[in-house]
């Protein structure tokens, strides 16, 4: 990211934060800086237009399950806490046995962690519906313009219609 601005400056661009929801994709979180994230974020929220932005309207997306566990333990006693999303990692489906083994390992170990959502590229939609039928999911797609993009968007609409677990879908800019 070039010419970046702080999250505080970004939020100040909104005319009104009341009832807005944000999904923060935390790119560089690890076991050494997760508390720093929570401290700074708590502070930003307190000062955001007189505290209009609430924790329950914020999703924190984290890829590492162990870090996700640490974050959950740090926020679980809050009266209103951040929503947590596990970023489902890239899996090469071409290597069938390997991918089945990886996914089944996640299926078996997921109950040891807490997350409100699984966030995933739409290409894993059918896999996640099979593996985690009762979990809420955040689906998104990247790339593609014009026809390909419209086609993917149409699929997103279809999935959203037929599955109540898919509550939020990312509709990206054409890049």
């Amino acid at each position, binding site marked *: *990211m*070039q*010419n*970046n601005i*702080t*999250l*505080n400056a*970004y939020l100040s661009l*909104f005319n009104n934060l009341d*009832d*807005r*929801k*944000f*999904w*923060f*994709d*935390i790119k*560089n*979180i690890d076991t050494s800086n997760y508390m*720093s*994230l929570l401290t*700074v*974020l708590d502070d*930003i929220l307190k000062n955001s237009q007189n505290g209009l932005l609430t924790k*329950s309207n914020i999703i924190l997306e984290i890829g590492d399950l162990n870090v996700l566990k640490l974050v959950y333990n740090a926020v679980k006693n809050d009266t209103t806490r951040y*929503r947590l999303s596990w970023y489902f990692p890239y899996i090469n*489906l071409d290597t*069938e046995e390997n991918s*089945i083994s990886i996914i089944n390992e996640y*299926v*078996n170990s*997921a*109950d040891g962690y807490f997350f*409100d959502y699984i966030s995933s590229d*739409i*290409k*894993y*939609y059918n*896999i996640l519906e*099979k*593996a985690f*039928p*009762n*979990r*809420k999911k955040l689906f998104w797609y990247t790339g*593609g313009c014009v*026809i*390909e993009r419209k*086609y*993917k968007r149409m*699929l997103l609409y279809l999935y959203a219609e037929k599955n*109540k*677990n898919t*509550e*939020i*879908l*990312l*509709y*990206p*800019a054409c890049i």
Partner: protein
Amino acid sequence: MAVKNIKNKYLLLFLLFIILIIYILNHTLSAYNYIYNDKNVISKLYENKSYTNTYILYNSEQDGKWLHHMNSVDNVNSFQSKSKLFEVDILIGSNNLICCS
């Protein structure tokens, strides 16, 4: 000569039509392949049925349906009146959180 020009015109239109069809098919197949999952993989997956309908209903009341990826300041100005849901990439800095350009 005039007849030949007309024939060339039709030929050109026909070629453009074929190119358009190929373009549409190519992009449609590409999109389909993007979301296609091997049924052999899916059939061999275990299921984790944790969480109940109560949990799902609880969250359904909390959430909206759509959101936008908003990593540009310009997007905030364009979209803030159209959506209440935004996805933003964040980097943890030394004393602050860095987001958009």
